[in-house]
């Protein structure tokens, strides 16, 4: 399997490690009213879709970038690859942190 790294082009999947659902980027507000419940859901509740899935991959044997890979779990077809930091910065919750 090849992952088309946004900066480095197609790279062998053996250079990457897999973390899981890209929703892990959306960490709840620990000071929120329902923080306990939100963290329970964040930590334990995962969708397990048969089809399109957005997931976090780490280019460990490469440039050490975190990537958000959109993959079809039925066919293993990779439909999109983004830098996770771009995804996080584009996320409204990170507006104050963006440069």
């Amino acid at each position: 399997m090849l992952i088309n790294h946004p900066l480095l082009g197609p790279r062998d999947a053996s250079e990457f490690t897999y973390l899981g659902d890209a929703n892990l980027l959306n960490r709840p507000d620990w000071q929120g009213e329902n923080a306990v419940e939100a963290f329970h859901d964040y930590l334990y509740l995962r969708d397990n879709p048969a089809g399109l899935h957005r997931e976090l991959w780490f280019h460990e044997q490469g440039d050490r970038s975190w990537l958000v890979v959109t993959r079809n779990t039925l066919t293993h077809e990779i439909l999109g690859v983004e830098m996770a930091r771009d995804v996080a910065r584009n996320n409204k919750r990170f507006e104050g942190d963006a440069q």
Partner: protein
Amino acid sequence: MPDLKPLTALGAAAPRVDIIGALTIAETPNVALASLAARKGQGDAVVEVVKAGLALDLPAAGRSVANTSHRIWWTGPEQWMVEADFTVCELLAEALKSIVGATGSVTEQTDGWCRFDVTGDTVVALFERLCAVDVAMMAVGDATRTSMHHIGCFLIRTDEGVIVIGPRASAGSLHHALVEIAGAIA
């Protein structure tokens, strides 16, 4: 003072050179290394100060640059590795920090790595057996990180061949990988 003698990464007094078929695999000691990471929001500023200080443009993704005193290659977004001759620039990290100031963070890397220079007509055949990178498509100056025999290494394509920079603690294993495959294609 005790009379201390430096050893190369492979543990000998003199650097190892293996000539196998068309390939020469030469251990290259006396390499000073320091990593550079742009601080938050300073990506453009660090490029400016390095250009002023070392007369080199910090390279884009997958590339390297070099002049007579320094070589720099890209290691990740807004991160680079800087190499110099240890016998001339032993305190590379200190010198680099004085150049970049508050625009970047510098970490001494000299003792963490070993370097092998692989030259000869069959370098592409060697590295396409060792790693998943498309070495045949690498242009002179391309630099990338990959793994060979489970060892994470930098590969830098030069006019003469390929420079391999790998973890010093695994110098023996890396050397074994290079020599073994060189023997297989000789």
